[in-house]
């Protein structure tokens, strides 16, 4: 039996945990107390997927010191909570075989490497969507692809058994960078306007801004030695960087054509709930890399400042 611990099991982590448990893994979630209590009370988690609801037995814990050793760790905390969460789980290190983060960005792998050593870190990127309806109940909203770097077996097979598409690639860094650049552009044009995804992509001003941000991300990635490519499941960033707005409009029209007309970034919910926004590992990372590599990223800087202005946790103390 493969043992897996999901560190930071909010919506996405709970969905992955449920899918892995369904496929036969021994899964523990490290999650918020209310979620854990609801799971304990029900004897498992309720996984909604389309019209189907499945009750999946798994273990959950909110106290890090009570988490038991597992051979695979999946990190899905908010980026700014990673270091503290991992620090509280040092007792897992002796039995750990591999750790993978499915958070946004690239810096996550460095944080993981600092915890368990780079030899045990596999890259990963998730295009799956999920929402936590209430404690103990999670809904799969989008069955996107999960990309892994090599060395994470049997995770891809187990997720595949549960019906999630997975791809193992030795080009995982390129996938992570593409997801990072997409997140940078998408968060900017949706969270700062409140628009649903397809409407933002079809807006002429926002499409231009999207292109500008993708080109800046492309330049930073290139300077870092990573070639930005069109990745299946993401917007065609290489094409957008080279061709301009038309592929952006096409992406918007494609969403509209398949009825995906209510896609909202989770950051809007974070703004609404006055939670800290996850921009440090996306815009902040790109800016830091740009500074390190001498690449100008003026649009990304303005985006970061505007998004940080929406973040009530960054409000200055009254003078």
């Amino acid at each position, binding site marked *: 039996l493969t043992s897996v611990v999901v560190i930071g099991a909010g919506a996405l982590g709970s969905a992955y945990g449920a899918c892995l448990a369904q496929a036969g893994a021994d899964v523990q979630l490290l999650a918020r107390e209310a979620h854990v209590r609801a799971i304990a009370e029900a004897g498992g988690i309720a996984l909604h997927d389309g019209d189907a609801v499945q009750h999946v037995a798994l273990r959950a814990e909110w106290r890090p010191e009570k988490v038991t050793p597992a051979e695979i760790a999946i990190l899905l905390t908010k980026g700014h909570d990673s270091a503290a969460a991992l620090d509280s789980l040092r007792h897992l290190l002796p039995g750990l075989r591999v750790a993978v983060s499915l958070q946004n960005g690239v810096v996550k792998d460095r944080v993981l490497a600092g915890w368990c050593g780079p030899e045990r870190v596999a890259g990963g990127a998730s295009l799956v969507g999920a929402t936590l309806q209430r404690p103990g109940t999670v809904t799969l909203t989008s069955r996107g692809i999960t990309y892994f770097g090599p060395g994470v077996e049997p995770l891809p097979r187990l997720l595949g058994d549960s019906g999630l598409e997975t791809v193992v690639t030795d080009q995982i860094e390129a996938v992570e960078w593409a997801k990072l650049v997409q997140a940078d552009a998408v968060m900017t044009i949706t969270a700062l306007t409140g628009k649903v995804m397809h409407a933002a992509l079809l807006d002429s001003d*926002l499409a231009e*801004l999207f292109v500008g941000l993708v080109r800046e991300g492309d330049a930073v990635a290139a300077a870092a030695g990573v070639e930005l490519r069109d990745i299946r499941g993401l917007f065609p960033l290489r094409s957008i960087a080279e061709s301009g707005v038309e592929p952006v409009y096409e992406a918007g029209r494609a969403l509209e054509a398949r009825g995906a007309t209510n896609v909202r970034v989770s950051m809007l919910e974070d703004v609404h709930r006055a939670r800290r926004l996850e921009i440090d590992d996306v815009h902040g990372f790109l800016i830091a890399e740009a500074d390190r590599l001498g690449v100008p990223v003026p649009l990304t800087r303005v985006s970061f400042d505007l998004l*940080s202005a929406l973040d009530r946790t960054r409000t200055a103390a009254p003078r």
Partner: protein
Amino acid sequence: MTDLELLSQVLGLEPEEVLRRPGAQRVLAALRVEAASDGPTPATDVVQALARARERG
């Protein structure tokens, strides 16, 4: 419309609240610098693009 009013509209925040956000303060400073120079105007371009998009609903 002043820069502060424009930013207030883009962020959906009252002007006095805008002034309490360090990120907004940096954007206001950039808008002032760009207005006084003949160089590139990224902050102005981004803020105006967002404002037009918001106006279109």
